[in-house]
């Protein structure tokens, strides 16, 4: 087991253009499950590939277990990686796929069978060892890729969107299994995804990346409840955080915190809205509305209400909503960065 550290890691693919990864500094904890989260093009996969040694950083250093590995080949880093496509060797049986890292790293032959069986049992694919990858379902392939990664007991696991090729239903159970798996083996894991649900559900900490910069590092609760800037605030959460233009600041609040006036106890800011649309999603209702008061008139807001609450909201209806004061977040209007809380004179 080991920690992974990035020190001032930068990757510029084309001279003169913005880097794919810019001056990233990170340090995992022992046995941590860290998630790199960001939209496509945010540099999360490039960062992972530099940690794996598949890409050379333009500047900066990678440390694994406290040792600088920046210029070591992938094979000398004692890491295992699961690729988005799984990258199984199509001409080899499941058994030989899993045994390949053992052979490549010169593990004595008599240990192979035991280790392969152990990894296969751990992932519940013991019965598939003689099959070829093409004869497996997506979920089974993903397990084979994981088994191949775990078999040599690496110090660090790198996972590049391993669930993105599974269908939605399978993804939910695979998420849970992967978390269980991580608890069992306890290996430091870095997981790349663009799916905020995966990040929230699995990560001990989330690193939010955008355009090659780290925007925030924190627990799922921190990045969701206390976003560091407007990018994090709007990237996480569905629908995203409401941002209301208020003088020199932006006032943010989550859609689930924008509730009818009578549902908000304690000190709150009242917001009169005119409903412009309602989506019924089974367990919840999404209300699209425009603020109805003079100063903020015509700014769009979104509210998320439990479907059990009967609002009687219909298009065009004016309603009285409110947000509890403790749920308001403030952002600097020019930089987008988080600003100090203040009391709000509304309207």
């Amino acid at each position: 087991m080991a920690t992974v550290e990035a020190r001032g890691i930068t990757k510029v693919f084309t001279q003169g253009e913005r880097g794919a990864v810019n001056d990233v500094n990170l340090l995992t904890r022992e046995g941590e499950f860290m998630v790199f989260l960001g939209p496509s093009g945010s540099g999360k996969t490039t960062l992972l590939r530099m940690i794996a040694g598949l890409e050379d950083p333009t500047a900066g250093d990678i440390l694994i277990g406290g040792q600088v590995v920046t210029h070591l080949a992938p094979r000398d880093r004692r890491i295992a990686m699961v690729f988005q496509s799984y990258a199984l060797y199509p001409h080899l049986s499941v058994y030989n796929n899993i045994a390949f890292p053992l052979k490549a790293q010169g593990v004595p032959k008599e240990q192979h069978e035991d280790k392969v069986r152990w990894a296969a049992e751990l992932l519940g694919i013991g019965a598939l060892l003689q099959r070829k990858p093409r004869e497996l379902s997506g979920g089974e392939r993903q397990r084979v890729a994981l088994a191949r990664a775990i078999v040599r007991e690496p110090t660090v696991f790198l996972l590049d969107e391993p669930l993105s090729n599974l269908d939605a239903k399978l993804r939910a159970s695979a998420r849970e299994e992967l978390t269980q798996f991580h608890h069992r083996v306890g290996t430091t894991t870095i997981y790349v995804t663009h799916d905020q649900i995966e990040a929230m559900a699995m990560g001990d900490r989330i690193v939010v990346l955008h355009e090659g910069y780290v925007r925030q590092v924190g627990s799922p609760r921190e990045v969701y409840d206390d976003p560091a800037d407007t990018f994090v605030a709007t990237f996480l959460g569905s629908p995203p955080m409401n941002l209301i233009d208020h003088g020199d600041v932006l006032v943010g609040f989550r859609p689930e915190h924008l509730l009818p006036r009578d549902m908000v106890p304690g000190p709150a800011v009242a917001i009169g809205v005119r409903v412009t649309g309602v989506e019924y999603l089974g367990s919840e209702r999404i209300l699209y509305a425009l603020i109805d008061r003079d100063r903020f008139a015509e700014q769009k807001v979104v509210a998320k209400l439990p479907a059990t609450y009967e609002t009687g909201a219909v298009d065009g209806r004016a309603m009285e909503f409110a947000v509890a004061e403790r749920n308001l977040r403030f952002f600097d209007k020019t930089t987008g960065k988080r600003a100090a809380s203040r009391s709000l004179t509304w309207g």
Partner: protein
Amino acid sequence: MGVSRGAERLGIAMFAPALIYIFALVGTPLFLAFLYSVGDVTVGSVGYRFVGLENFASVLQNPTFRGALWHSFLFTVGAQLIVIICANMLALALVDRFRGRGLVRFFILLPWVAPISLGAIGWKWILDSIYSVINWALVKLHLVGPFDTPMWLGESSLAMMSVIMVHAWRMLPFSTVILLAGLTAIPKDIPEAAAVDGAGFWRTHFQITLPMMAPIINVAVLFGVIFTFTDMTVVYILTRGGPYDSTQVLPSLAFFTGILGGDLAEGAAISVFLVPILVVIAWLMLRLAHRAEVV
């Protein structure tokens, strides 16, 4: 809804050139070759008498034929072995991006697109007993004495080697292009996964990349074998089968016997002799390719 009569006619008309071409230029000669091989035709004769397998029995008795059969195998296997090994190395070198890759690819393709007679004549001078640049270089490097230079085309084993080398030079671009396509078709993830799994260059190449390329290598070998086994250009231009028939291969022998020697029937028998061998090779290769695909 049926196809209208007009459209059907148009279809036949469009199809006709290909059909006529195959019948006239492939089917007819092939049929004639079979017919002649069991007859007694010579250049200038007018009659035709069926003689059964007499021609085949006759050529099998002929030591020149048996030599040519052996040379054909040697020529094919030797040239293909060189081609596949070199094409692999070239494909590996050319798959990565580097400055001037386009130019290098162009130069490598050149022997294939240049007329073979031109290339072979170039080689004839390179291997010439008096004007050979190889010999000139060897002499200048003091590796051989000035009156002791190798006779590249004048000595049996050297001549065979020269013919094989020149043919390999000529076939190399074709195989390289095919292997390059096969190599490009392997997803980048897979060699990367092998690198992370701890495999070095050789292990990745021999245990991952090569097996994955097996079907396409089979295709390259199949075509290469057929192009080599049925080819006489290099032999004809460089050695004319000599010295003492030591580089004679079946196609050149068929040409010398049937066309230059005038014994059409025996020439036909020699060339028809190739057919079952080629069929077996093709069948084997296709089976291999198919198995590699299914397994």
